[in-house]
């Protein structure tokens, strides 16, 4: 197991190195001169050639590409992603809190997704084909296919305006989490519960289920065995849900005025704030690599056959 983790870590680090190189390189393919952008963002009225050259020198942009890349990479490793072109503040002071806020929202949502998917997945698999199964599938299908902005608006209208129970936006108390997390949960649970349901159904016909019944085991025990085997597939999906949601909360965050990554990156992209975009891509890539590794390790912990190969 130890050797496996080390092997995976080496692969992950080299993958991240490649991603960072591509991310940094993309900025150089952009037709815009970064130094000019900085000056524009700072509101300098008269941008001269000398001024651009001066800014370039002060930002280290007159160095060769590889030197610049390695300078950037080493400072990134110390969580120093440079300064924002627009506000001049350190990128990490903007990205750090936003990442934390989105991560909190994501974790709450993923917890909801896991609970709902397992709960509904098990119930629907055990009562396959009857009215309950069909209606749960139908309702979750509608909720999952509804665009997030529509669902969010309806929720705000009902829970915040009609019933006046929950805040419409912002991040003030734990109650602020409920609506945005619910929207994300309902959007994803409708897909993920099907994975649990179908893998439970495929397990139902396995011989070990028949033998368990033939030995007189109670249905509850048998269901737990089936669930344990079904989760092997689902665990990797759930793990990958965390970085996926982390990177796709833009709509929900904008509607609920959530001070998170989505809001920050949209503003940065519109303002061509390259350091923030670079840092965002890097952080998200790291999250994907990390959770991918985590899902493999969890899968191995659940599946003894995989564990043997490690």
């Amino acid at each position: 197991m130890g050797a496996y983790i080390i092997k995976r870590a080496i692969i992950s680090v080299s993958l991240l190195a490649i991603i960072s190189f591509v991310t940094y390189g993309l900025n150089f393919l952009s037709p815009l001169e970064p130094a000019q952008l900085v000056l524009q963002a700072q509101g300098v009225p008269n941008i001269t050639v000398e001024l651009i050259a001066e800014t370039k020198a002060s930002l280290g942009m007159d160095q060769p590409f590889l030197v610049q890349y390695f300078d950037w990479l080493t400072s990134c490793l110390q969580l120093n992603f440079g300064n924002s072109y627009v506000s001049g503040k350190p990128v990490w002071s903007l990205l750090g809190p936003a990442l934390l806020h989105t991560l909190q929202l994501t974790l709450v949502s993923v917890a909801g997704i896991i609970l709902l998917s397992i709960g509904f997945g098990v119930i629907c698999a055990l009562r396959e084909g009857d009215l309950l199964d069909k209606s749960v599938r139908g309702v979750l299908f509608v909720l999952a296919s509804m665009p997030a902005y529509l669902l969010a608006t309806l929720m705000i209208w009902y829970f915040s305006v009609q019933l006046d129970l929950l805040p419409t936006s912002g991040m003030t108390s734990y109650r602020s989490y409920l609506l945005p997390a619910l929207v994300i949960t309902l959007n994803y649970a409708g897909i993920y519960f099907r994975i649990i349901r179908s893998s439970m159904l495929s397990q139902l016909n396995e011989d070990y289920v028949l033998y368990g019944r033939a030995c007189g085991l109670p249905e509850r025990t048998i269901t737990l065995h089936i669930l344990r085997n079904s989760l092997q597939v689902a665990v990797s999906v759930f793990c990958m849900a965390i970085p996926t949601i982390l990177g796709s909360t833009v709509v929900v965050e904008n509607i609920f005025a959530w001070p998170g990554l989505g809001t920050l990156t949209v503003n940065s992209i519109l303002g061509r704030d390259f350091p923030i975009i670079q840092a965002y891509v890097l952080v998200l890539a790291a999250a994907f690599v990390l959770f991918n590794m985590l899902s493999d390790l969890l899968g191995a912990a659940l599946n003894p056959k995989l564990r043997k190969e490690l």
Partner: protein
Amino acid sequence: MNILKVSNLRVWDELTGQVIVPNSSFHIKQGNCLSIVGESGSGKSMTCRAIMRLNRGSIRQSGDILFRDVNLAELSDKKIRSLRGKHLCMIMQHGMRAFDPSCVIGVHIRETLAQHYGLNRSESEARMIIAMESVRLKDPAQIMNKYPHQLSGGMLQRIMIALAIVLKPDLIIADEPTTALDAISQYEVVEQLLELRSRMGCAIILVSHDLRIVQKLADEVLVMKAGVIVERGTAQDIFSNARHEYTKYLVSSKLALNKHFHKVMGGTGIVDR
């Protein structure tokens, strides 16, 4: 005395309307071995599962199943569950698939014994170890900490037999217990089944399409074809004096196979010893 009497058993698929077993009646005496033979898809397994009411999904059944004067067909789900394992035991065809692949073997054994006898972990392991030693499994304590994929099909089959020894059922249903095994494991499993029967005096329903094993174990034989019992009788009768064309075909194909085996191996077959 009959330990099991099945009358007018009908098994059908509700979804497709296909009748799998149209109308079967048979009985088995205390301590006897009844063998059901027939080719694949002739309804042997379905009949066995119907006895324990284990057919699921769209498969429905009707008819009376009298087990020690209790009609299994009329019992509640809870009642029949308490009989399964403790009084009616099943030995599955594929040892490899019979245990939860993500748990060690011991988990299933502990759960089963806790369910029927309320045994705790150390008690159930102690009993199981004795039973596993009696079916000549080495290092039983270690085996119980192994996952199914770490053991061989023959070993898993013998674990199921050992569990049956601990459970002391009145009737064991062995659904093709040797089909998935190699010749040597087949021989060992047959020996264990013989011993199980002589030691515990329980009745056995042996489903097989391997007539060599049937000849060795069975007292009585049912021949099934397409869900219908085409011939029944004592094992001796069936093998020496088959009346139905289908039985003659099965017996002759077995003889032909054995002849071929003798020719190739130049001696006696393992099971014929």
